[in-house]
């Protein structure tokens, strides 16, 4: 299933031809506001073709809004979002989204769900992708009979069958249990390495970001607060010292404000304790 292709950002120039599926994403001075509340302000990031970028931040920091604006579900008030050209083809790049909830059509069986928007001639391909995510034998079941993790795997298959140039992952593993989540992370890692699409993952799980991505971006107050390359060779083991150190550092940066508040709280509660 996996081809020996890796698309780390360092190797990207040398491997550009082999990583031809991915497209670059250029986000320039994008501002988005909802009802007067600014979510993103003059936001800039550049993502190379085939790169895996994780976007972390607190709830409501605008990370999902950023992802939604890349696929056109939100329209920025100002700024531009440009996708690069697909190598060897003049067509528009194919962008697919995986949402936090699987968003399978409950009234279609699994295979027709994967086939959504495709010609019937592509059934063999859909079956192949379904087998790739390990659900070949569930092709004729209703989504309601699948577990949450299985549904997300079907959603991944539905995105992959289009062979996307850019895959947007909007906290796709947020509602899964810890074991299923690790399994899904491995699956996403494998398909990304074998297909070489560009990936943008929004997550609140810093360990997940460090484990999967080439680059971790922290959004805070509508801007990029941290842009960190993950220089840990793959396959990455969670227990390793470098992994832990990087996770700790990013987490520390995310929690900075919280830490300040807690410090103040401790001094207050310490005082009240003294009084009682």
């Amino acid at each position, binding site marked *: 299933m996996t081809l020996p292709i890796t698309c780390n950002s360092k190797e990207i120039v040398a491997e550009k031809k082999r990583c031809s599926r991915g497209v670059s994403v250029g986000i320039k001075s994008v501002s988005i506001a909802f009802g007067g509340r600014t979510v993103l302000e003059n936001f800039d990031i550049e993502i190379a073709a085939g790169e895996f970028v994780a976007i972390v931040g607190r709830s409501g920091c605008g990370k999902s809004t950023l992802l939604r604006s890349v696929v*056109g*579900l939100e329209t920025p008030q100002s700024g531009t979002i440009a996708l690069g050209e697909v190598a060897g083809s003049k067509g528009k790049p194919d*962008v697919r989204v995986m*949402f936090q909830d699987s968003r399978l*059509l409950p009234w279609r069986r699994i295979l027709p769900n994967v086939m959504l*928007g495709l010609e019937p001639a592509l059934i063999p391909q859909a079956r192949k992708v379904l087998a790739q995510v390990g659900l070949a034998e569930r092709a004729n079941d*209703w989504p*309601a009979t699948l577990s949450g993790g299985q549904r997300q795997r079907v959603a991944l298959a539905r995105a992959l069958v289009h062979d996307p140039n850019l895959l947007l992952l909007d906290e796709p593993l947020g509602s899964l249990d810890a074991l299923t989540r690790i399994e899904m992370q491995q699956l996403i890692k494998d398909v990304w390495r074998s297909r070489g699409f560009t990936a943008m993952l929004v997550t609140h799980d810093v360990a997940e970001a460090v484990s999967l991505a080439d680059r971790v971006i922290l959004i805070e107050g509508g801007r990029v607060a941290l842009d960190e390359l993950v220089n840990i060779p793959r396959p990455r083991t969670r227990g390793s010292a470098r992994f832990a150190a990087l996770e700790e550092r990013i987490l520390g940066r995310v929690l900075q404000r919280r830490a300040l508040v807690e410090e103040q709280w401790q001094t207050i509660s310490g005082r009240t304790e003294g009084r009682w």
Partner: protein
Amino acid sequence: MYRHRPGSTIRTQLRPRTLVKRALPWVVPILLLVGWQWASSAGILPSRFLPAPRAVLRSFFELSASGELWLHVRVSTMRALAGFAVGGGLGLLLGLFTGSLHWAETLLDTTIQMVRNIPPLALIPLVILWFGIDESAKLFLVALGVFFPVYVNTFHGIRSVDRGLLEMGRTYGLSGWPLYREIILPGALPSILVGVRFSLGLMWVILIVAETISARSGIGYMTMNAREFMQTDVMVVGILLYAILGKLADLLAKGLERYWLRWNPAYQAAR
């Protein structure tokens, strides 16, 4: 009991329980029937007031043997179905229309909501004036009555389709008819079927009234005609026929729900 193997224990325990469960809904009707027959035989219930169940049964067989019963049933069923097809069809179309297009809602919904509050049966005097006591009068009343439940529920169904699924559909390049066929219609279907089931009940109610007021055939005519001759047994046969036909219509609607909504676990278990 504990010496049995687990499987056999469960089976011996389950069987009488399901039997009781099946029989339970029929206990009250059978008791009522027995009490009714007893009251008639004992002379407490004069047949002028309510005939004995045996008399009703006898009159049912006589009427069906002469073919008179089936003629009336056929006429009434045809009226009901024709009215339902016209009214339900229009309700579905208009509901889809106003549910999908905002300008159509602004244009039509206020008018429809105003007309909705007029009871169809209040129009009987006007309807007799317009159509006489012809078939078209009954068709009009039934169609008008079933239109609104189907319309309101279709409209509501379209409006309550899961936003997330619509959004997903758009990111997969669906729009226009494919989006409608794949997401909007199936998403609205549970609500539409609620409207259908409701209007099937209403269909009989309106037809009964229309037929008892003005008709030359049909179950309502048969019942009213029997009143002239004090044939209480025929009257009860007519009333029971409505109950049976209403139940059949409901079973049909349930069957449609179970087939079309078989993807929905809530309808798989429903009986």
